[in-house]
């Protein structure tokens, strides 16, 4: 009586999770190590665009010798990251000795399945529980045991373990490959909309030069908002041609980029013919503290055909007491123009 009541309450709690996926098409099948398998389907949005992937998971789980089947629905995003699970009507989850999952267990399972940093999932299955007679000493340090205990749902160690490995197993690569195969302008925007560092990297790691050129707007927005080293890495991956065409973007954003993004951008500009406003901006951004950045800006500017720009450069070098490398100095000396009289005032470094 009590059990069935609990069961009803549980169903009540989780019925809101039940949204039938709009399965549009079979994507691929994943074979599990234990011989089982599951089919992964595409889920499309109202516009008909690929939105995520879903699968009905049916797996046998054994807790201390007692095995029983588990059924639920898994969802992954476009780049193969596990999103969430959904319950299937009439298929509640149980722990050891058929103790049903409590609401907090269902919540914890969601946390477990979305966490890539758990330590218990890295332990080989056969070593999860140290099978030693009860009177012998546990070989793990206190910390290890405690960490695992905190990570799992007690009484459902293998359920957590099995499901985590399904969620983060071979399916991840397969989804990536599947998305890549279908990667068009719409899908690129869809991936960018995930607003996740991993999705941003997915794009810059896989876009071809042609795709970069066709989707410049999307990528430049990601660069503008990039965190960590994303902006720098994205710039390094992009063809120079994009920057040839988007010098206004550089002028607008260069001063706000961090040092390493600026360096990456300057490297890209080596094969770009700079317009005068960009040249001017770069000169204004010479630092009074000598650095690789200054050297790169100087090298770029020395290629200019604009006399006024060279004059501006020389003035800035003198004003900010920036030393030139011997090579750059010689290069400047070889050029003609009204700035030549002032060159002697510029310092040199080796």
């Amino acid at each position, binding site marked *: 009586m009590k059990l069935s009541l609990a069961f009803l309450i549980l169903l009540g709690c989780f019925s809101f999770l039940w949204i039938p996926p709009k399965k549009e098409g079979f994507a691929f099948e994943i074979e599990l190590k234990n011989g089982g398998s599951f089919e992964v389907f595409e889920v499309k949005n109202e516009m008909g665009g690929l939105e995520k992937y879903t699968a009905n998971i049916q797996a046998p789980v054994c807790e201390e010798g007692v095995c029983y089947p588990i059924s639920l629905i898994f969802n992954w995003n476009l780049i193969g990251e596990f999103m969430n699970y959904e319950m299937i009507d009439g298929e509640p989850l149980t722990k050891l000795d058929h103790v049903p999952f409590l609401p907090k267990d269902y919540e914890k399972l969601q946390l477990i399945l979305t966490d890539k940093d758990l330590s218990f999932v890295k332990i080989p299955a056969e070593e999860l529980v140290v099978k030693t007679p009860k*009177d012998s*000493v546990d070989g793990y340090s206190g910390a290890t045991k405690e960490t695992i205990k905190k990570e799992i749902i007690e009484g459902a160690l293998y359920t957590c373990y099995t499901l985590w490995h399904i969620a983060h197993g071979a399916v991840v690569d397969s989804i990536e490959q599947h998305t890549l195969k279908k990667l068009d302008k719409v899908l690129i925007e869809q991936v960018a909309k995930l607003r996740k560092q991993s999705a941003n990297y997915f794009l810059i790691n896989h876009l071809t030069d042609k795709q970069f050129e066709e989707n410049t707007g999307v990528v430049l927005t990601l660069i503008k908002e990039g965190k960590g080293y994303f902006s*720098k890495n994205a710039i390094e991956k992009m063809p120079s041609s994009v920057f040839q065409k988007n010098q206004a973007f550089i002028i607008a954003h260069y001063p706000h980029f961090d040092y390493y993004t600026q360096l990456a951008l300057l490297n890209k500009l080596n094969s770009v013919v700079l317009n005068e406003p960009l040249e001017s901006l770069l000169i204004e951004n010479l*630092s009074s*503290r*000598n650095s690789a950045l200054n050297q790169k800006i100087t090298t770029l500017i020395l290629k200019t055909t604009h006399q006024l720009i060279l004059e501006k450069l020389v003035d800035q070098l003198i004003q900010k007491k920036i*030393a030139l490398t011997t090579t750059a100095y010689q290069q400047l000396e070889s050029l003609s123009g009204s700035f030549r009289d002032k060159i002697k005032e510029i310092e040199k*470094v080796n």
Partner: protein
Amino acid sequence: MKRLPLLVMLLVANICLSQKFTTLFVEAESFKNKGGWVVDQQFMDVMGSSFLMAHGMGKTVEDASTTITFPKIGTYKVYVRTRNWSAQWSQVEAAGQFQVLINDQPLERVFGKDNPKWHWSEGGTVKIMAKETKISLKDLTGFNGRCDALIFTNDPNFKPIEDLQKLADFRNNYFGFDKNPKKVGPFDFVVVGGGMAGTCAAISAARNGVKVALIQNRPVLGGNNSSEVRVHLGGRINLEPYPQLGNLVNEIGPDEGGNAQPKEYYEDDKKLQAVLKEQNIALFLNYHANRVEIKEGNIEKVFATNIETGEKVVFEAPLFADCTGDGTIGYLAGAEYMTGRESKATYGEPTAPEVADNLTMGASVQWFSEKKNEPVPFPNIKWGLPWDEEKAEEITKGDWEWETGMGLDMKLDFEQIRDYGMLAVYSNWSYLKNNAKNKEKFANESLKWVAFVAGKRESLRLKGDYVLIEQDLTEHRVYPDGTAPTSWTIDLHYPDPENSKLFPGAAFKSIAKHVKIYPYPIPFRCLYSKNINNLMMAGRDISVSHVALGTVRLMRTGGMMGEVLGMAAAVCKKENTNPRGIYQNYFAELESLMQKGVGKTNIPQKQTYNLGGTLLNVNK
């Protein structure tokens, strides 16, 4: 290393001191045969000397012995400098007791039982029958009895000196080392501290054409990663924006990870051989740097004392690195420094406490046991902490979280901190072996290793031109003078609440709180002193707030800082400048060296363990 023969020293000193009476001063750490006793130098700046310690982990260790030459036979009074280390926690018995043997005959007195503080313990009188006399230390307990020095005197008016400064003067006068410190060099760069940071700094500098002296106050290199402390390397290497930094860490770092593992895991010899291969490095193992000379804001000389012989060496160079972890050199030189936790108001750090305090992260005394085929006894100690079933930790290995000393002074109180760590290990183990409900489970377990060199996490942080703070890391505020990237979480330790309930105010276990970050290039301005012009730092004593220390303190990160320091030393030498000069005028040169890297690139990537959580997009 050339040592002055002990006997000659004693004779000369004796003649100098007195024509009429004889007073012989014998340093225990200079005993020719150390037997099973270890040399402990960790507290010499506080209690005055390194000493011998019977670190038997419950089993008595082999006698230490030496032969001394008495100018005259006759009756001598004996004094022994020692302490009862367990007395600060228990009045019942004494943990570390030992005897002094004269020609294998014990003096009547047992030492290590009396005063909880370092003091001269009276040993009665002894009749010396021969000029060549063997002196031995006999361990009676196996629990860290300690002996700093012995005095033999036939001067009826002689009183041993307790005042630390006067005692130091007496020693210096007696042995004469201070009058004539040995000059070594010339060097371009002197690196003090041979942990991962210092070792990498020395090798990096040497490979960049700099003549280096590397000074380490232990017999092995590696510091916390040596087989003496056994903490594995942590953090990531080969990261943006300088992917070549860390190649040297990979080259000299152990292939396998794990805390409190067997000695071989830590590959002391790999680090040593890497240093010995460098023609440009002069290695000074067993030297503790303890004095500096300053002129116009520059360190001119660093003096170091041999932890066994007492011999002093003086190093002169235009550039120094403090890789001591404790900020020893900076402190001695009058460098500005920080300690404890800054208040929220100081840097506006969200994690900082409202009010500044002296809480530091603690030091770990790790340990493990091994299983034997037969039952192994362990003394049922009376001087341990009160223990019961609730307190009992039924485990066979104590990892990093056996950490203590938070809130104490990591320099002044460090002997107490280390000793308390050991006391907790022994108290638990003695209970498990003798009194626990489940003691049968531990019958065949034998305590194999307990660290006597405690693994420190935090002491002084020397102030640089910039102090790295929490928001720099969490908001990824990158500066143009970035160097080695720190990648570990902001990992701050606190006393374990559970353990604190059982041991109020004296927890010996800790917990860690983590905040993930993107790898963050540590500004070069954090790697040199603000007010000592020719002093750089690498390791945990760099210019960071307490919160920021949480991430930079990892040893792979410290090793990469060392790589950077070596490169900076090369730029200083080439441009005849100092570290601030690099920042202002020659940073491009350092950038180009950092891009190039210094370690071997043709060896497999072995540093794949203990990488830590990160916001970095990690490739599968």
